[in-house]
C-alpha cells in the first residue's frame, strides 16, 4: 500500500512536470506523454496494482485537461487490460514486441481521446 501511495505521488509529480516543464521543450508543438509511458511500463512489468494505478493516473491527468473526469482514466484502464492480455500471448519480451505494443497504445489513446474531444 505504501508503495502504491508513493507511486501515486510520483504520478502527480510526472503530470506536473509534463504540463509545466516539458511545454518549453516541445518539438513541433508536441509534448511527450510521460503518463502513458509510465502506464505502459507498469503493465508490461506486470506490477501487481498496475490496473488500479493506471486508472488513478488517468484520473489525475483528467484534472489537468479539459476532458471530463474519468476519460483518460477509462482509456488507461482499457490499455492496461489490453497489455495484460497481450502478455499471455508473448512469453518472451523482445524489443520489437515492446515497440509494437507501445505504438498501438499511443495510437489507440490519441485516436480515442481525439474522437471524444470531437464528440464533446
Amino acid at each position, binding site marked *: 500500500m505504501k508503495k502504491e501511495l508513493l507511486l501515486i505521488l510520483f504520478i502527480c509529480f510526472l503530470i506536473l512536470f509534463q504540463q*509545466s*516543464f516539458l511545454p518549453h521543450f516541445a518539438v513541433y508543438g508536441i509534448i511527450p506523454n510521460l503518463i502513458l509511458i509510465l502506464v505502459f511500463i507498469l503493465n508490461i512489468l506486470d506490477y501487481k496494482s498496475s490496473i488500479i494505478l493506471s486508472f488513478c493516473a488517468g484520473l489525475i491527468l483528467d*484534472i489537468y485537461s479539459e476532458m471530463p473526469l474519468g476519460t483518460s482514466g477509462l482509456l488507461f484502464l482499457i490499455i492496461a487490460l489490453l497489455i495484460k492480455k497481450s502478455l499471455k500471448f508473448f512469453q518472451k519480451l523482445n524489443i520489437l514486441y515492446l515497440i509494437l505494443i507501445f505504438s498501438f497504445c499511443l495510437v489507440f489513446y490519441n485516436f480515442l481521446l481525439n474522437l471524444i474531444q470531437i464528440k464533446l
Partner: protein
Amino acid sequence: MKINKIVLVIIVFLLLIIINRFFLDTTKNSFYNLTSPVQSFFWRIGDSSSNFLQSFLENKNLKKNNQEILEQNQKLLVDLQEIRNLKKENQELKEVLDIGLNKEFELILVSSISRETNGDFILISEGAEKGILKGMPIITKEKVVVGVIDKAYKDFSRVLLISNKESNFDVQIQKKNNPENISEIYGLAQGKGNLKIDLNLVPQEKDIAKEDLVFTTVLAGVFPRGLLVGEIKEVKNSDISNFQEAKIEPYFKNNLLGTLFVIKNFIPKEEL
C-alpha cells in the same frame, strides 16, 4: 469477492458521474490551488532551461542574426520616428474632434502556468474572482493575440489558444512591403493544433506573400481589431479552388511563457 469488486466499480463510476455533474469546477480549482506553486516552479525552471538551451544551439547563427537585428533596428528607428509624428498628429486631431477614442483596453495581468499535452490549451493564474469571463481575449504585452478564455474557474482559467482546432476567426492581411494596405485583404484563420494555424478564404485575385503580417478584425466579434496574429509562412495556390490557402506562423509561440493580459472590456458577440 467478485460481487465486492463489481460493487466497488459501480460506486467509483457513480462518484465520477456526481463529480462531473456537480463538483468538477470546484475539484479542478482545488487541485490547481494545491499544485500551482509546484507548477509555477516547473514553468520558471523550464523557461530558463529552454532559453539556455536555445542560446547554446543558436550560437552558430549568432553573428548573422546580430547583423540582421542591427539592420532591422535601423529600419525600425525610421519607422518609429514616423509613428511619433503620426501619433502627435492623431492626438491633435482627437483633441480637435473630441471623440474620446483614447480608451485603452481594460487589462488583467495574468501568467501562464501550464500547457496541456492534448489540445492547444494553457492554464493561467487568475479566474472568475478577478472578473474573468468565458470568451475574453488574451494578449501579450506586444499586443499579440494568444487565445480566448475557454473556462473560468474561481482562481484559474483555461485558455483556448488560437491554434486550437476549435478556434477560427477573421483576419486582415497587411502587406509587408506596403504596410498602409491593411484593409484590403481578409481571410479566415483556422487553428490546426500543435501551435499551427492555417489561413483560408482569401480570394484568388488578392496578392498575399510570405512574411505578410496577419491581424485580427472585429467582423466575427471574437477579437478586437488590430491584434497581431503572426506572419504568413507559406502560400498554397490551387487552380481548382476559388480561394488561396496559407500557413501562418503564430507570434504568440515565442511569448506564451511570459506575462499575459486578459482584455476585460471586450465581450465577444457570442457572449452578449
